[in-house]
C-alpha cells in the first residue's frame, strides 16, 4: 500500500471576523491525492476551496487538522524546517498579472526556486534548467531575457507553470489557474497541464469553479459547500451519477453549448449563505430542493460506499447503500 502523496485529515481553518464571530472558511476537510493524480476541488464563492489550497501550501497555518506530505506530517513544522520541503509543493495562481514580479526578468523569476532549493550545481546548470523549464511550457528560450509585461495572459501563465516546474515538484496546486484566460487560451493551458502531468507523474490539486474544465482534466473530484466537502469520488461517479443535491444542481446550472437541448435545470432558491452565519444542521438545507425536517436540525453523517464514493447527505442515510 503506497503512501499517498498528500493526505489531509479533518482540516479546519477559521478566521476571526470582528467582535465575536468566526468565519469557518474550512470546516473539517479530508482528502488524499495520489502521485500522478488530479484531484479537483470545486465549489462556488465562500466554499473554502482556495483556503484549502493556501493552507495546504502553508501560506496560512491551519487552525486544526493534519497535513501529510509524502508520509511526513507538515502542519506543525516550523517555517525554517518546512522551507526545504516546499520544493515538493508548488503553485499556479489565478491572476497572470499579479503572480509574476513585474520588476524581474523571466530568467530571474525561474531561477528563484532553483537557487532556493539548491538544485543547480553551477551557473551553467542553472541556465540549463531555466531553459528546460521554458521548453517544457513551449515558450521560446528568448523569453528568459524579457519582462512579464511583454507577454500575454496565457504566456504569463506558462511562465508561472515553468516556475512551478523549475522546483521539480511532486504536487502542483492550481488555484483557478485557467479561470482568467480566454476560451482558446484555456484549452492550450489545460492540455499543457495534462501533458505535463502525464509526462512527469505530477499530482495536481485543481481548484476551480468551472466544472467543464474540471471535466477535462480531473481524475477525482471533491465538491465543497460552505467549508465542507459534500461529495467526493471519481469523475465518473460525481459527474455521471451525482448523489448530493448540491452537486446535481451545480451540474445542471452549467450552460451547455447545445441550443434547444432539454434543460432539466434545478434552480436553487436564494443566495449562498454567509460563511460567518451558517445555517444550522446541514448547511445546504436553506437552498436544497429536497430538504427534510431532519436537515434543519442535524448535520448529516458522511458515508463512503465501497466504491469510494463519499456523500454527506441525509438522503443517503435513508436509503441503503451497498
Amino acid at each position, binding site marked *: 500500500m503506497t503512501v499517498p502523496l498528500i493526505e489531509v485529515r479533518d482540516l479546519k481553518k477559521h478566521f476571526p471576523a470582528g467582535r465575536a464571530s468566526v468565519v469557518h472558511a474550512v470546516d473539517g476537510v479530508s482528502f488524499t491525492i495520489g502521485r500522478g493524480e488530479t484531484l479537483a476541488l470545486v465549489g462556488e464563492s465562500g466554499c473554502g476551496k482556495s483556503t484549502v489550497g493556501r493552507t495546504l501550501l502553508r501560506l496560512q497555518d491551519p487552525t486544526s487538522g493534519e497535513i501529510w506530505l509524502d508520509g511526513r506530517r507538515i502542519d506543525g513544522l516550523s517555517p525554517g524546517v518546512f522551507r526545504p520541503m516546499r520544493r515538493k509543493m508548488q503553485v499556479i495562481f489565478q491572476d497572470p498579472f499579479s503572480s509574476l514580479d513585474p520588476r524581474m526578468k523571466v530568467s530571474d523569476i525561474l531561477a528563484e526556486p532553483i537557487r532556493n532549493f539548491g538544485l543547480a550545481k553551477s551557473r551553467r546548470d542553472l541556465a540549463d534548467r531555466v531553459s528546460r523549464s521554458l521548453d517544457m511550457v513551449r515558450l521560446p528560450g528568448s523569453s528568459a531575457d524579457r519582462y512579464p509585461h511583454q507577454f*500575454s495572459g496565457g504566456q504569463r501563465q506558462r511562465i508561472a507553470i515553468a516556475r512551478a516546474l523549475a522546483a521539480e515538484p511532486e504536487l502542483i496546486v492550481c488555484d483557478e489557474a485557467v479561470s482568467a484566460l*480566454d476560451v482558446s487560451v484555456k*484549452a492550450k493551458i489545460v*492540455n499543457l497541464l495534462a501533458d505535463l502531468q502525464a509526462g512527469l507523474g505530477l499530482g495536481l490539486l485543481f481548484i476551480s469553479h468551472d466544472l467543464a474544465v474540471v471535466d*477535462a482534466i480531473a481524475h477525482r473530484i471533491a465538491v465543497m459547500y460552505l467549508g465542507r466537502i459534500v461529495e467526493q469520488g471519481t469523475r465518473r461517479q460525481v459527474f455521471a451519477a451525482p448523489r448530493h443535491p448540491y452537486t446535481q444542481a*451545480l451540474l445542471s*446550472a452549467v450552460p*451547455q453549448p447545445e441550443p434547444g437541448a432539454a434543460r432539466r435545470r434545478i434552480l436553487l432558491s436564494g*443566495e449562498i449563505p454567509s460563511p460567518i452565519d451558517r445555517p444550522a444542521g446541514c448547511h445546504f438545507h436553506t437552498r436544497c430542493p429536497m430538504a427534510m425536517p431532519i436537515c434543519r436540525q442535524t448535520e448529516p453523517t458522511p458515508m463512503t460506499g465501497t466504491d469510494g464514493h463519499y456523500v454527506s447527505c441525509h438522503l443517503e442515510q435513508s436509503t441503503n447503500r451497498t
Partner: protein
Amino acid sequence: MAILEVEGLKVHFRTGAEAVRAVDDVSFSLVRGETLAIVGESGSGKSVTANAVMRLLPRAQTRVAGAIRFDGRDLMALPERSMAQLRGDRIGMVFQEPMTSLNPVLSIGTQITETLRRHKGLTMRAALDRAVEMLAAVGISEPGRRIAEYPHQLSGGMRQRVMIAIAICCDPDILIADEPTTALDVTIQAQILDLLAELKRRTGTSIIFITHDLGVVAEIADRILVMYAGRKIEESATSDLFEQPMHPYTRGLLASMPRLRGGSDAGPARLHEIPGLIPLQSFGAAGCNFAERCVRAEAVCRENSPPPLLVRPGHMSACHFSDIGTASS
C-alpha cells in the same frame, strides 16, 4: 422591424503614435423583441461596440465613425443631453462588475428612484412604489425592506439583480448586458439567466447580450454575432451557428470549449487548440485578421479582406472559403 441599426461602426483609439482599431467596420441590426448575443474573446471589440452604441466611450483620443440608428434616429448626431435622456429610459445597460457599477454611498432605493424621477418625472412616493415593484420583479425577497439597504449589504447576485432593476425600471426598448453573469457563481448565473428570460417574456424587451461564454449564448440568444480582433466574422441564428459553424475561428472556438461530458468517457479530454495567439491589438491590416492562425489560410486570405458572404439565409460568414461545403473542421 429593426429597433437598432448599426452600420459601418469603426472605433479607433490613439495610443502614442499608433491607432488601434478596436472596432473595424461592424454592422448589424436588432429586431424588436429579439436577443442578440455578441460573442468574442479579449480584444474582439465586443464591449467597445456596446459602449459605442450607448456613446459611453471616452472622448479623448477616440474616433468613432459609422451610423447608429435607434428607432430611426441617428444616435451619433444627437447632442449629449438628448443621449442622456435616452440612456436609462429607452436603452438600459447592465455591466459586468456589480461591485463598481452601483454607488456605494447611496441606498439602492435612491439609485432606482433617481432614474425613475429623472426620466418619468414621478413623485418620490410614486417612484418608491415602483422601485419596490421592480425589486420584486427581479426576484429580490422582502423588497420593501431591502430598498433602504446599501450595495455592500447585498451579495453579488443581488447586486446584479438591482442593476437589472435599474436598467429596466423605465421599460426600455433595448437592454444591453455586458458580461452580466461572468463574475457570478454558476448557480447564481443560472438564476439571473432565468430572470432575464422571464423579463423578456413579460415585456418583450430586445436584448444585446455580450459574453465570451458560448454555453450561455446557446441558452439565451436568438441570434449570435461572433467578433474577432475588431471585426465581425460570423452572424447567424443560434441553432444554425452551433449546428453548422462556417468560419474557421467559430469552429475552432466551439471545438476548444471544454464541456461536461456526463462522466461517461474514460480519461481526461484533449481540447482542440487554435494555433497562434489572440492578437493584442488590431492595426487594421489588409487581409483576414485570422489568416495567420487559420489552418485553411491561403494567399488570398493574407491579401484581401474577406467579404461578408451570405452562406445561407440569415447566416453570414466573413471567410473566403465560406461557401465551400459544409464539412466540419
